[in-house]
């Protein structure tokens, strides 16, 4: 019992065997995550191409790929489209609609609740490509279900409103996650807090502002981070529009695909991938900062002397 290791080595494995247990996972992470990431950074500094001379003998071109990308109106346009796509489908769509559904269903029990939850979940558990083709069938110009329902034959939703189409599609597909997360969060709001606000005469808006949102703030932040990152990196809209027409729905993951694989410019594609990684990192850092500030303030508050 007096072994000096026992304080930190709870399992009593010893260093050598502990490393043995961790090693397989580290090797897998190294081969499939760290190496490709580093390889992408390297590729981004070269003029590597899918075919031709540069495929056989790539040259290091320094930061040219990055400066080219940042000067390329197609890249900047794609970045703005992505911001619109994330803002419209993740933040405004999934988060707001998911919260609204969770709030309305919170006091419901029985058949209605199970029905809504079932339908919303179904859209979440279907594979994205399947959902993509379902929506393609829904929005199709000639034989689409939506045109049949609205009696607007020949209306080309995907051509006339490509960004709106993929935003609605992604809201439909991803709302379940936010709804479930907010349902769980709302269970943590004590009913007596809401009832106190109701007795004071608070409207629903005031109840949400003064009681609910302060209590579920951390859930909101976690939800926004996750769905923003997922949506930012989402490739599924490719199934609907392929980025078109004329790049009007070419969000960044589709842009990378079009540049690297269709255009064959692997080096340029790798550089843009790395830029996407940096943007994701920035998202995560801002979120962690927000959470940490909150935690520090709470610690400072509860650290006071209880009387």
């Amino acid at each position, binding site marked *: 019992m007096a072994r000096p290791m026992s304080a930190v080595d709870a399992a009593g494995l010893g260093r050598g065997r502990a490393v043995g247990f961790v090693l397989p996972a580290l090797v897998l992470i190294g081969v499939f995550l760290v190496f490709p990431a580093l390889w992408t950074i390297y590729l981004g500094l070269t003029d590597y191409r899918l075919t031709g001379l540069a495929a056989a003998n790539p040259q290091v071109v320094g930061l040219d790929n990055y400066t080219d990308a940042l000067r390329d109106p197609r890249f900047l346009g794609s970045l703005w489209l992505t911001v619109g796509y994330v803002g419209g489908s993740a933040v405004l769509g999934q988060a707001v609609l998911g919260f609204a559904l969770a709030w309305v269903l919170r006091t419901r029990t029985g058949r209605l609740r199970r029905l809504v939850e079932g339908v919303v979940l179904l859209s979440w558990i279907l594979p994205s490509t399947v959902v993509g083709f379902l929506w393609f069938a829904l929005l199709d110009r000639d034989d689409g279900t939506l045109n049949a329902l609205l009696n607007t034959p020949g209306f080309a939703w995907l051509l006339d409103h490509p960004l709106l189409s993929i935003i609605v599609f992604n809201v439909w597909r991803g709302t379940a996650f936010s709804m479930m997360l907010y349902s769980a969060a709302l269970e943590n709001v004590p009913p007596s807090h809401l009832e106190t*606000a109701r007795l004071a005469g608070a409207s629903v808006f005031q109840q949400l502002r003064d009681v609910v949102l302060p209590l579920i703030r951390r859930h909101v932040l976690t939800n926004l981070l996750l769905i923003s990152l997922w949506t930012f990196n989402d490739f599924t809209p490719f199934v609907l529009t392929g980025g078109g027409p004329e790049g009007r729905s070419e969000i960044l993951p589709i842009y990378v695909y079009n540049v690297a694989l269709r255009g064959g410019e692997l080096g340029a594609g790798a550089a843009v991938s790395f830029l996407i990684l940096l943007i994701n990192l920035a998202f995560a850092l801002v979120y962690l900062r927000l959470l940490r500030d909150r935690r520090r303030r709470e610690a400072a508050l509860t650290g006071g002397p*209880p009387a």
Partner: protein
Amino acid sequence: MISLHGLTKVFPGGVRALDGIDLTIGDGEFFALLGPSGCGKTTLLRTIAGLETAGSGTISINQRDVTCLPPGRRNVAMVFQDYALFPHMDVTENIAYPLRIRKVPRAERLAKAADVARRLSLSELLRRRPAQLSGGQQQRVALARAIACHPTAFLFDEPLSNLDARLRLEARTFLKRLQRELAVTTVFVTHDQAEALALADRIAVMSRGRMIQVGTPAEVFQRPATTFVASFIGSTPMNLLPARAAGGSLYAAGAVLPAPAGLTDGDDLVYGVRPEYMDLSPTERPDAFPGTVSVLENLGTSTLVTLEEGGTFVQAVVDEGDEPRLGDHAWAVPRRALVYRDGELLAP
């Protein structure tokens, strides 16, 4: 004044939480709703608050029919069992919250909050958050929030049950003094009969959505209307012994007792005596319950003695120093007794 007429509430699934409640609570009265869990007392309180809607019947507060008004327009304040303080607001903001909702100007509501806080000795804590307060302080903040908006009635849901035993006694005295000073009609819910007896001007004992007995603590304690109330009220449970009337006398647990008037032979009776109203005699008497001392429970200034005789238990409270020894044979002589027929109290 709060008046309830024919109040009924049936929950989905058929549970009758309230079953035709008629009740009038006077101005400034401190009124207790007492009963075991599931008796409907909390539902009744929440229905008065407007948090539950009544199935039928009417509620009026100060002659104003509020049956269909939402909680925010009934001008009542409720203190919940868990106090429901908002964790992200400090004490001042919590107390001033109802005033903020009523759009009272900021300076005015801060002054009002500080004023109420001073009355409840919370002045030193105004900048604290609820997590930094003790249970007793949190309770006072919840009370302050209820007082600050000058309601026509206070509704308390188990106001003392989250405090530890010692603090609960202090808070009880404090609450009673505060209610006297404010003279605001107050309804509170409790499952603790001692709390109801100590605090209330009047008590309603409830069971299965009905009011079994309404009366002052003295009435409810001295003359429980049914055997249910008799067994529920009192810190030591009342002895309820099956009895039989014959030839002008009552026979119960080995004792022959004088029968009240109006009994017919063969009635199904229960003879009730509180342990506090029993004397212990070391010598045999015909009008006493015989038994062997099987348990002695020290209550501090007195001792609860359990006599056993042929599977029947009779309890008596004796003063300190007068305790029999375990295994002694003794006779318990009732001083003051009640007789129940079919569960209902017989008039003496």
